[in-house]
């Protein structure tokens, strides 16, 4: 009986040591405190960043859903500066039937991210900086053609319908999805 009690005590001591040891070595994953990285920052006072502009636009719900599915929100709130070409809901709807649904599936996250980053270029390109005949290097690694006729500008074949200044760059609303070449 005594032996049994001692064994129980021993077990308890070992268990509590193991417990405290566990805390000390592994610890919690503090990255979980900010699951969306910088996109977790709450700031309703500053000028709107690219993500906030997209989220606030009724014409870009598909784009926002795609950005969330690809988990690249934090890129669009980063210090930048970034130029983002934002296809409208109609632009996504114009893709072959089922394309968007397929891309939004978790197993296609990487591919979706690749397509979306083909719509973002480092630095702030606006107005006359979008020059006819130039090639723009996108965050996907692809180059896309810039075409200008007077005030009308096409990037990768997508026409700029309007532009909004963002705190971390600029958003150009475009009428097409700029599908990257596969290689």
């Amino acid at each position: 009986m005594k032996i049994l009690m001692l064994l129980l005590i021993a077990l308890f001591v070992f268990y509590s040591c193991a417990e405290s040891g566990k805390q000390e070595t592994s610890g919690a994953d503090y990255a979980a405190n900010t699951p969306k990285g910088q996109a977790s920052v709450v700031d309703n006072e500053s000028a709107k960043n690219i993500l906030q502009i997209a989220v606030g636009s009724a014409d870009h719900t598909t784009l926002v859903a795609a950005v969330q599915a690809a988990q690249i929100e934090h890129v669009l709130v980063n210090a930048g500066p970034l130029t983002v070409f934002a296809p409208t809901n109609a632009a996504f709807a114009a893709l072959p039937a089922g394309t968007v649904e397929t891309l939004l599936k978790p197993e296609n996250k990487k591919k979706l991210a690749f397509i979306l980053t083909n719509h973002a270029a480092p630095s702030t390109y606006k107005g006359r900086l979008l020059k006819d005949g130039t090639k723009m290097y996108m965050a996907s690694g692809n180059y896309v053609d810039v075409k200008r006729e007077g005030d009308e500008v096409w990037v990768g074949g997508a026409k700029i319908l309007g532009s909004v200044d963002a705190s971390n760059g600029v958003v150009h609303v475009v009428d097409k999805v700029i599908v990257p070449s596969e290689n």
Partner: protein
Amino acid sequence: MKSYSKTALAVLFVLLLSLVFFGCQQKPGGGAIGQSTAEKAFVAPGEYDSHYAFISGGFSGQLAIHGLPSGRLFKVIPVFSVDAEKAWGFNEETKPMLQTSHGFIPWDDSHHPDLSQTNGVIDGRWCFINANNTPRVARISLQTFETEEILEIPNSAGNHSSSFVTENTEYVVAGTRFSVPVPQRDMPIAEYKGNFKGTLSFIKIDPEHGHMNVEFQILMPGFNYDLTHPGRGKSHGWMFFTTYNTEEANTLLEVNASQNDKDYIAAINWKKAEEYIKAGKFKTLPSKYAHNVYDEGTHSAATTMEKEVRVLDPAELPGLVYFLPTPKSPHGCDVDPSGEYIVGSGKLAAALTVHSFTKILKAIEEEKFDEHKYGIPVLNFEAINAGTVEQPGLGPLHTEFDGKGNAYTTFFISSEVVKWKLGTWEVLDRKPTYYSVGHLMIPGGNSRQPFGKYLLAMNKITKDRYLPTGPEVCQSAQLYDISGDKMELILDFPTIGEPHYAAGCPAELIMPNSKKYYKIEENNHPYVTRSEADSRVVREGKNVHVYMTMIRSHFSPDNIEGIKVGDRVYFHVTNLEQDYDVPHGIAVLGATTSELLIMPGQTETFVWEPKEVGVWPFYCTDFCSALHQEMQGYVRVSPENSNVKLTWTLDGE
């Protein structure tokens, strides 16, 4: 067989005992702080501290903001000393902030931060802090966390008993440490006694904007004035100042100022002072002192040189000042949250003396005066004494309160904090500090509503507490959890300069008000550039004004030509960002004045007097963005007699 198993049992028992005692011990280097204790000071990545602590930088002249309980340093606010990092005292906008009647002074010794109060409770609006050497009081906005105002104190020398705040922030006080000739004049030092005077200044605070002015000074005998605290609750309307050197020695104070058995706490009835001012019973002394105000709208400071001050003479004005005899050169002068008890820490005394405000009023009414000193009544010690904490430790300095009827006093010589009970005067607990503690701070601990929970002890000596860094080692603060019956040391962290004193409060009083950026449309700087299209360069004789903007990730203009050797070039640079936490910096090669660090929406100016012909680059000094390294430009400097046209461009336009 039976005896064998008994032996085995005994062995097993001893093994178990040793396991219990040693098995869970900290690994080497864990020190005296156990793991569960460490967790009390641990703030996980991504989480906020529960309290702000505003810790004086002492001889650094600045104010440091730390979080509690983590001890993490968030910001050093430049106050009385220049700060190249923030261009404080270097750029054109802030140079006036360090102006004094003695000229531009780039340094000082900052001592006692105190927070504004409403109804005796910390309200999170402003932090005040005093400069010791060139007597000044500064006001810091707790929205922008910038020093907004610095007021010089006339007829003062060594502004030590400052910058404590009355319970509705009616006044911030400033008492002189050194008595001096008032007004200053050429006279023999040996004639100190009876001729030198000490002034206690009452700085009125404008309740809306916080602007300060010296409302009046009380001209006191030539003692040294050490520390002060306002009455609160029932004693609101009074201010208590400790004095030492009531011997009026002018040399070897170490010995000569320690002769009297008792010095005094001077009790000032400032409501009475207001009556006397209203009745015109003051003298106006000609004086000269700087009043520097920073305007958030123009992002610029200006100096006004004040010319006179109103002075009250307590010898001629009955009821204004009383002396409370207090043993042995009292240092700290602390009033409990109810306002009833005034604790005098005689730094050479073996006991702590506590006076009763109720008894003080009664003694005044019954005229229980032992004598008059320079016309000021000295109250009878026994008549006002509330009690004594006997043999609490060696070298008592300062006391704060937890709002639960307990007081906590620091002891410099015996390096400890002692907890004792108000009313019974019994010692409840004592904990060592490492080493030689000065002030202590309990959040709200010198107000009507202490928030309790933590006690921060600020130490002058660290010796072996941290990795050595040569002859100079940092000073430190130590955090105790005071939520239980016994104090518990939970953290030990380094501080800037000398952590002389601190103020603290729960984070929620301040956090929601913190400014994120300055609105560009509200920027009324005389040289603001509100858009890139407005950027330009204007020549006015030898003076050239560059109206420059910055936004991720370029300057406008970024190519400037037509500058000549001998010009005085003003770079007025506006940060066009309207986004939180996106400052930009600028520095030009060869500028002898300043680099700039410009907050979003703000304009700052530095002057460059190019001495060499050439093409000189400038760039952004704050890593602002992915293209920060591209954020740069050139200025072409031509000979004095050249006729290169003044041009400014961005991308060729």
